[in-house]
Structure formats: C-alpha cells, structure tokens
C-alpha cells in the first residue's frame, strides 16, 4: 500500500504478532483496526510491576528523509561510534 501522507510505499512489519505498516519515506506507521489495542495490551503486560516506561519515540521523526534513504530513518547502524571510513568521506569530494 501507499502512504496516505507522502505516497511512498509502505512495508509490513510484525511486532510481537501485531502487523504494522511503516512508510519507507516519512517513517509514519499505519495500524489496522484493533492493532493499537493489541499493542497497548502487550505494553501493559510488559510493564506490569516495572517502573513507568519512558515516553514512546515519535512515530513521525523530527527530520524527514527521502524514500530511498536507509531503513530505520537515517539513524544508521553506526551508533555513536563514527566509522573511520565515514570520517574520511566527510572530508573528500
């Protein structure tokens, strides 16, 4: 299916048995009927007896990215440790 917001293709992911569609462009998430309730139920089970969970990450990131961008919204798989090769790329044409 296509994202209703930016019209990029949406991909289906399975999170704890709940099907969610995420847009490859703006990273927005689409939930089918009843899926939000399923997620809430799962969350309640998860956090029973635990301290209150931190605020949920934004479904829509602060910075939009193009449809051809890296999966997971430009975060990269490199974390805080900057790859040496990227350090070099930052300084060359």
């Amino acid at each position: 299916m296509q994202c209703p917001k930016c019209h990029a293709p949406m991909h289906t992911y399975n999170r704890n048995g709940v099907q969610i569609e995420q847009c490859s462009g703006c990273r927005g998430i689409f939930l089918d009927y009843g899926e939000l309730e399923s997620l809430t139920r799962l969350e309640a089970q998860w956090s029973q007896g635990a301290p209150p969970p931190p605020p949920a990450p934004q479904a829509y990131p602060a910075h939009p990215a193009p449809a051809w961008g890296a999966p997971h919204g430009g975060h990269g798989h490199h974390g805080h440790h900057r790859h040496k090769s990227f350090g070099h790329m930052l300084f060359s044409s």
Partner: protein
Amino acid sequence: MTATLLLQDLTARARATAHARSPACPCGAATLADRPDGTVVRHADTVAKAHPPDTDSTELTSRLTVAASHPGILLAPLVPTPVDLHGRLVTFWPYGAPVDPEAPDAAPWEAAAALLARLHRTPAPRALPAMRGPAKAARAVARLREAGPHPAAAPVRRAWGTLPAWARAGAPMPDTTTMCHGDLHLGQLVRHPAPEGPWLLIDVDDLGVGVPAWDLARPAAWYACGLLPPDDWGRFLAAYREAGGPAVPADGDPWPVLDVPARALTVQTAARAVVKAAAAGRPLDEVERSVVDACDRMAAVPPHS
C-alpha cells in the same frame, strides 16, 4: 614535466611568497595534499595550490575574484590572478586552520550552513561560470565506467540513469543566477587567521552559478544514507534556514528540493567508492556499501522532476 619537478617548484614558490610576507619566517614546509589532479603545499603561513591540468584560466580568475571580494564568506587569495608553473595554474593563499579530521564530531555545522546561506544570497557577478557539481558527478560516473565491470557498478549506474539531465551535466541547471560553492565537505572550511579566527569557505575550483540545494546535498545524502546522525543534519539545516538561505523553503519538508542533488551526490560518492575499492582489490566497507545500497533503492523510487 614530472610531478616531482612541479612539487619542487611549487614548494619553492610557496617559500618565496611566504618570505615576501614575513622575512623572519621560522621555515618548515609541508605538503598538504598531493593528488594527480591538484597539489597543495604549505610554507609557514602561506599555501600554494597547483590546480588540475585542465583548469581554464579565465574561469579560475573569475572565481578568484569572487573569493577576493567576499572576505567574510570565502578565504581571500594572496594574489588576485593565477600564475603559470610548468603549464599548471598556481594560486597563493594564507594558511587557515582546518576542521580536525580526527574530530569530525566537532564539525562546525552551523558555521558552514551560515556561510552557505550568505554565499547563496550574494548576487553573482556577471560572467561567473556554472557551478561544477553536476560535472564532477558525471566525471565520477565516467571513471566508474572506465574501471570495468564490478558487481556494485550496476546499481550505481541505474540510479544515475534516473536523474534529470541537468543533474548529470547534460543540460543547463534550472537555476543560473544563484552563487554556489559546488563542492561542500568538511575539508572546505578553515579558520582564518588560524587557529581562532572565523570559519571561512575555501576551494573555489567548482564555485559558480547553479542550484544552491547542491551545496546542502552532501550532508543531506549522508543523513539519508544513515551515516550522518539526524541531530547533525538537523543543526545544519536549521542554521541554514535561520540565516535566510534560499535553497530550501523556510519550513516544512526540504526533500522535494534536496532529492535530486542528494541522489546525484550519493551516486558520485558510491562511484568513487567502487573505483577506489576495485583499484585496491578490496571489498566495499560498511560505509561504502551503505551508499551503494542507497543507489540500489533509488531505482525503485525515481525522482519526481
């Protein structure tokens, strides 16, 4: 002429120019960069640059004039026109302190963005040639073709094929009046006077009129490929907008404007990476793979324009 002779004489010219500026020179010359397409030699507070062999003298002179007349944005040359040395054009510059390559996290994103915004808002002089960004991308893709078959070459060439002609240097750019740097990366910023002076842009070789989004597109491409943290990209973009930069709308999604240049620069980066890895006979590293992978995804979502 041999490369050694050029380097020798360039070093001598740098020394002579440095000594003319400051007769009590402590001396000690260093080669900053020695590549087939350009050689940069430093002597104390003076830098001499031999430009690539195919550099056009008239075009370089008009680019030098821009640098000389906007000292708050670009580092000003010591000599207003290039001189000939063994058939190569040579220019002289004061030394500026670069971004520490070991500490790219301390990159001056805000300063870079503000300098670009000011450059883009500055009226271009008449007869300033076109910005050479698309031409450089086309050259990188041509070198990829010359390098022969490689498994990663196909997605890069496919992504290149989906770009509009202007982004492949096959047609004039849709903007022919905005002054652009043409090759922004972290090596193009220095503090002058070193080490604490204000940040300035250097390297006018690709400067000219064109699509200003090209100057934002390298950080944009790094961010899109998952290499540059979103916060760094956000700081750069916000600072550009705050400084009134005209390349992107003042708010909202900047990607409709950034998309084509960021694709072109991703293709350029991927093409250079594949050529380099092939020449060294090694596989692509993780970072190089991420730009090739981005090219692969581009074919599925061609640009709108």
